[in-house]
C-alpha cells in the first residue's frame, strides 16, 4: 500500500510540476527545486521497486490495479491528456535520469491545444528516445477505419482472380538451363561513404531559399488566375515563415527578384499585378508586426540586412511601421523602425503625417523626427498643426523641425512660441529662428529683445536671445548690441546691467576689432556681473 501512496504522490506532483515548468525559466530556483523534488520521489520509490507502470484509462490512472488518479472533468485531466493521444501505459524504470524526467515534464507541460502544435505527446516522447521511460500506445486512434487491415488484406488476396500458373513456373524452372541474371550487389567503397558524408553536410537545414527558387520557377509554369492566386499565397507564406524565423535575407532576395520581374518585360501587366501583391504583403501589418516581434527579442541583426530589406518595401508599410513604433520595447528595434520610416516615409508624406495624430506623445515626437530627417517641406503644413501639442517634448521637437525645414507660416508659429509659458519651448523656438537665419527671423528676435517687458525675463534666457542675435553679424545687430552695452538708466539699474552683460556676451561672439575696442572700454566697470561678462567676451572675441 505504501507503493500505491507513493505513486499517487508522484502523479499529484506531475500536475503541480506542469504548472511550475510552464511559468519559470530553467535556471529559476523554483523550477530547479520542483524537478529535484520529483526526482527524489522517484528515487525513493525505486529503493524497493525496479519500475513503476501506470495504466492509463480515459479518466483514471492505475498502478498495480489500484486507482492512483481519477478525474471526470475534461479540462486539466492528466489521464485524459495521455489517453486521447493513444497512450495506454507508461513505465518509469529505476535509474531514471534527471534529464529524462525534465524532458518528460516539459512535454506534458506544453499547450497541446494550440493550432500551431503539429506534434502530439506520443511524437514528442518518441523524438526524445527515452531510455528509462517506456510507453505503450494504441495506434487505433490513428485510424479512421479500424477494420481496414482485415478488409484490405482480404481484398488484396482476393485479387488473384485468375488461377496462378505455379506448375508452369515449376516446369519452366526445371526445363530452362539458362539462369536469369541478377543485378550484382555493388560494393560500397570508402569513397562512397566520404561522398555521402559530404552530401549530408551539404543538405542544408533551411530549405526556404530552395522553396523560393521553386516558386519563381512556378511563375513561368502558371497559366490561370487561380494558379497565380495560389502562387501569391505561397510566396506570402514563405515571406511570413522567414520573418518569423528572423531570416530577413531570403525575403530581401525574393523581393529583389520580384522587383526585377516587375520592372522587366517578360510578363504581362496582369501577371505583374499578381507579383505586386507579394511586395505589398511584405509591407503589410502582418509582416511588419512579426518583424517587430523578432526585433524586440533582441536578436542581433546587421543594420545593412535591415536596410536592404526596407529598400524593397512599398508605402503600404508606413502605417504598420508607425503602429509598431509605439509598441516596441527595445531601443534597437525602435531605431530600426525610425530608420525604416525615414527611408520609406518620403514615398508618401501624407500617410506618414497621420502619425502626428497618434495619442502617444513619443510616437508623435518620433514621427516629427522622421519628417525632419526626410526634410520634405511638404511636411510643414502638418507640423504647424502640431505646434500646439500638449506635450512640451513634442513641441520642442516640432519647433526644431520647423526651424530646419523653414517655409511659409513657420515664422509666425515660431514667433508665437517665443511667448510660450514654457521656457524650454521659447528656447527651442529661438534656436529654430537662428537656424532659419533669415532677415525676418532676425527681426522677430530683435523685436522681442527690444520689447519693454523683455528685461524682466530670467538672465540666462535673455543671454540666449542676445547671443542668438550675434549669429547674424551685421551692422544692425552690432549697433543694437553696442547701444545696449552703453545704455545707462536711472531706474531699474540691476535689470539694465543684466541687459548690458548680455550684450557683452553677444559682442564676444560677434567678435572683430570694433567689438573688442568697445568691450575694452568697459573692462573696469564697477558692476561685477557686467565686468565679468565683458572680460569673458573680450577673451572670446580675442580668440575669435
Amino acid at each position, binding site marked *: 500500500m505504501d507503493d500505491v501512496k507513493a505513486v499517487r504522490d508522484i502523479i499529484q506532483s506531475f500536475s503541480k510540476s506542469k504548472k511550475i515548468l510552464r511559468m519559470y525559466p530553467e535556471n529559476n530556483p523554483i523550477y530547479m527545486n520542483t524537478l529535484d523534488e520529483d526526482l527524489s520521489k522517484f528515487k525513493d520509490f525505486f529503493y524497493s521497486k525496479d519500475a513503476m507502470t501506470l495504466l492509463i484509462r480515459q479518466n483514471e490512472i492505475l498502478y498495480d490495479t489500484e486507482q492512483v488518479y481519477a478525474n471526470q472533468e475534461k479540462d486539466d485531466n492528466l489521464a485524459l491528456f495521455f489517453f486521447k493521444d493513444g497512450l495506454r501505459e507508461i513505465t518509469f524504470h529505476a535509474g531514471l535520469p534527471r534529464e529524462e524526467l525534465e524532458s518528460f515534464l516539459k512535454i506534458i507541460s506544453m499547450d497541446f491545444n494550440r493550432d500551431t502544435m503539429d506534434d502530439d505527446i506520443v511524437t514528442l516522447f518518441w523524438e526524445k528516445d527515452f531510455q528509462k521511460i517506456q510507453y505503450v500506445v494504441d*495506434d487505433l486512434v490513428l485510424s479512421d477505419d479500424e477494420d481496414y487491415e482485415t478488409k484490405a488484406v482480404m481484398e488484396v488476396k482476393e485479387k488473384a482472380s485468375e488461377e496462378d*500458373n505455379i506448375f508452369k513456373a515449376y516446369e519452366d524452372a526445371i526445363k530452362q538451363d539458362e539462369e536469369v541474371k541478377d543485378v550484382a550487389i555493388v560494393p560500397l567503397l570508402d569513397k562512397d561513404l566520404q561522398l555521402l558524408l559530404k552530401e549530408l553536410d551539404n543538405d542544408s537545414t533551411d530549405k526556404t531559399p530552395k522553396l523560393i527558387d*521553386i516558386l519563381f520557377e512556378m511563375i513561368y509554369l502558371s497559366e490561370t488566375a487561380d494558379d497565380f492566386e495560389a*502562387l501569391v499565397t505561397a510566396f506570402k507564406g514563405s515571406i511570413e515563415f522567414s520573418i518569423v524565423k528572423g531570416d530577413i535575407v531570403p525575403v530581401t532576395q525574393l523581393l529583389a527578384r520580384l522587383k526585377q520581374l516587375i520592372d522587366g518585360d517578360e510578363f504581362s501587366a496582369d501577371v505583374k499585378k499578381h507579383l505586386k501583391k507579394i511586395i505589398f504583403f511584405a509591407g503589410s501589418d502582418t509582416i511588419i508586426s512579426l518583424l517587430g516581434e523578432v526585433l524586440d527579442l533582441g536578436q542581433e541583426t546587421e543594420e545593412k540586412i535591415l536596410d536592404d530589406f526596407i529598400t524593397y518595401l512599398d508605402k503600404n508599410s508606413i502605417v504598420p511601421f508607425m503602429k509598431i513604433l509605439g509598441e516596441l520595447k527595445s531601443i534597437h528595434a525602435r531605431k530600426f523602425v525610425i530608420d525604416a520610416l525615414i527611408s520609406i516615409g518620403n514615398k508618401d508624406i501624407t500617410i506618414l503625417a497621420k502619425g502626428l495624430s497618434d495619442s502617444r506623445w513619443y510616437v508623435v515626437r518620433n514621427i516629427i523626427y522622421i519628417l525632419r530627417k526626410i526634410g520634405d517641406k511638404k511636411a510643414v503644413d502638418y507640423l504647424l498643426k502640431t505646434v500646439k501639442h500638449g506635450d512640451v517634448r513634442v513641441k520642442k521637437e516640432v519647433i526644431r523641425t520647423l526651424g530646419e525645414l523653414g517655409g511659409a507660416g513657420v515664422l509666425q508659429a515660431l514667433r508665437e512660441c517665443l511667448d510660450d509659458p514654457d521656457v524650454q519651448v521659447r528656447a527651442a523656438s529661438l534656436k529654430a529662428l537662428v537656424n532659419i537665419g533669415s532677415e525676418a527671423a532676425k527681426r522677430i528676435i530683435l523685436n522681442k529683445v527690444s520689447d519693454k517687458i523683455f528685461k524682466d525675463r530670467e538672465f540666462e534666457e535673455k543671454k540666449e536671445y542676445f547671443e542668438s542675435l550675434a549669429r547674424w553679424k551685421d551692422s544692425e545687430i552690432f549697433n543694437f548690441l553696442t547701444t545696449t552695452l552703453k545704455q545707462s538708466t536711472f531706474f531699474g539699474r540691476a535689470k539694465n546691467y543684466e541687459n548690458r552683460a548680455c550684450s557683452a556676451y553677444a559682442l564676444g561672439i560677434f567678435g572683430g576689432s570694433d567689438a573688442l575696442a568697445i568691450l575694452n572700454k568697459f573692462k573696469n566697470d564697477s558692476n561685477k556681473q557686467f565686468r565679468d561678462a565683458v572680460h569673458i567676451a573680450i577673451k572670446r572675441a580675442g580668440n575669435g
Partner: protein
Amino acid sequence: MLFILRSSVPAMDNKEDIEINKTARELVNQISVVLKTSQIHDANNVAVSSMIDKVMAIINTMILAERIIALELRGDFFYVNDTRIRYPLEYLLNFDFLVREFKKRELGSLIFKDRLSSDDIKIFVKAFISSGFSSTPFDVMQEKVSDLKNFSVERLKNIVDRDTVEPRKMVKKTYFNAVSFTKGVINKIKSGEKVNIKKAKRVVETMVDQILEQEQLLLGMTAIKDYDEYTYHHSVNVSVLSIALGQRLGLNKKKLTDLGIVAIFHDIGKMEIPNEILNKPTRFTDDEWKIIRKHPAWGVKSLLGLKKLDELTIKSAIVAFEHHMNYDLSGYPRIRKRIELDFFSRIISLADQYDAMTSARVYSRIPMSPDKALSIMMERSGGQLDPLLMKFFINMIGVFPIGTLVMLNTKELGLVYESNQLFASRPRVMVIIDKDGKRSTGFVVDLTEKNDQGDYIRSIVKTMDPNKYNINLAEYLL
C-alpha cells in the same frame, strides 16, 4: 497432412464451381456461428442444436458430391478440398473468428470422410470448446474426436517460424494502417478538409521504428501491390522504401520521419489529373502528357495550401516539385535556373521509380520483376538517378528482393520471404512447390542451413518473375 488435390475431384463447369464455393463459404460461416454460440450455450441447447443441424445438412450435401471434405486453414485463409474459399465482407467477422480459434488450438484441418450425424458434430463442438482451456489444445481435441469414424482433425502446418509471427503481424498492421491513413488524407485533401499532420507523424514514426528493427519485413510489404488501390499503396511503398534507404544513409529518426511523411505526399499533385487520363489504358497523347507533367507544380500548390507554412511543408513541396526532374535535370518540370536536386528528392525519386516499375499499372498490367527494374535503374544511374544513392538502394533491395520466385538446387520452387543482410545470396525462402513437384503449404526454409558435412542444404539456382506466372504474392506474404 491429407492433400486432396483439386484434380481428384470430378470436373465441374463454372456454374457448379461457383455453387460449390458458395456452399463451402456457408459451411465455414455456419461452423463459426455454431462455435461462437457454443462458447455461451451448451451444445444441447435448442438454438445450438438447430445450428448444428444446419451444419450437418451442408456437410452431407457436399459429401454427396465430393465424397471427402477437407476444410483447411492456410495462413489466414480457408480452403475446402484445396480450393480457397472466397467470401464477401459480411462474412468477414465470422471468418476472422474461426481463423483465430483454429490458430489458438493449432487446428489445421477438419476432415469429413462421410455423412455425419448431429451427434458427431456435437462431439466435435464439445471437444473444440473444451480444448480451448487446455495447454495442449490440439492434442486434447484430437483425443476427444478419435472415436468418430467419419471425422478427424489435423494439426496446423507451421508455414512461418513462430518467432517471426508477431513482428510480421505488427508490420502488416503498420503497413495497412499507413495505407488507410494515406487513403483518408488524400480523400480529405480532395474534399478540401483539414489534414491532421499529427496523425501522419504517428503513422510514419511507427514505420521508422519498424524499419529500424525489422527493415526486411516492412520492405517485404512493398512487394505486395494492389492494382486498384495503387495510388495509396504506391505512396506508402515509396515512403517505406525511402525510409529504409534513408536509414542506410545514416539519417536520424527525426529526419527519417520527415522523409517518410514527405514521401507519402510526393504524388499529391496527381489528385488534380482527371481520372480519364490517369486510368487510361493506352499511351498518352502529347496533350495528356502536358497535363501529367503539371502534377509536380500542382503538388506544390496543394501542399502549400494545406496549412501554414512550416519546415515539413516546405520539404514536402520541394519533393513534390522535384521528384520527376531527374538527377541530370532531364525530366520535368523544366526549369530556368539550374538547381541541385534536394537530397530528399533524390532518395524519393529512386523509391518512386522502383515501386512504379514493379507495380501493375493501368497501361502495364504485368509489373516488372524487381531484378529487371533494378537493371533498368542501374542503366539510369548517373543520368536520371543519383549514382551514389543508387548504390545504397541496390544494396538495400538485395540480390534477391522479397517476392522473387526462386528455384532451389533441391528442385523446390519458392518465394523469397526475407532477405539475409549478412549473406545476401542466402535469404529465407517460402517453398511453394516441393521437390516432388507438388504444391506445398508454404513452409519457410533458411538457405544458410547446412548439413552434417557442412554443406548448404539449399541454394538458389535460378530466379524467375512471379508476375509472369500470375502468382499473387499477397497470398503467400501476407
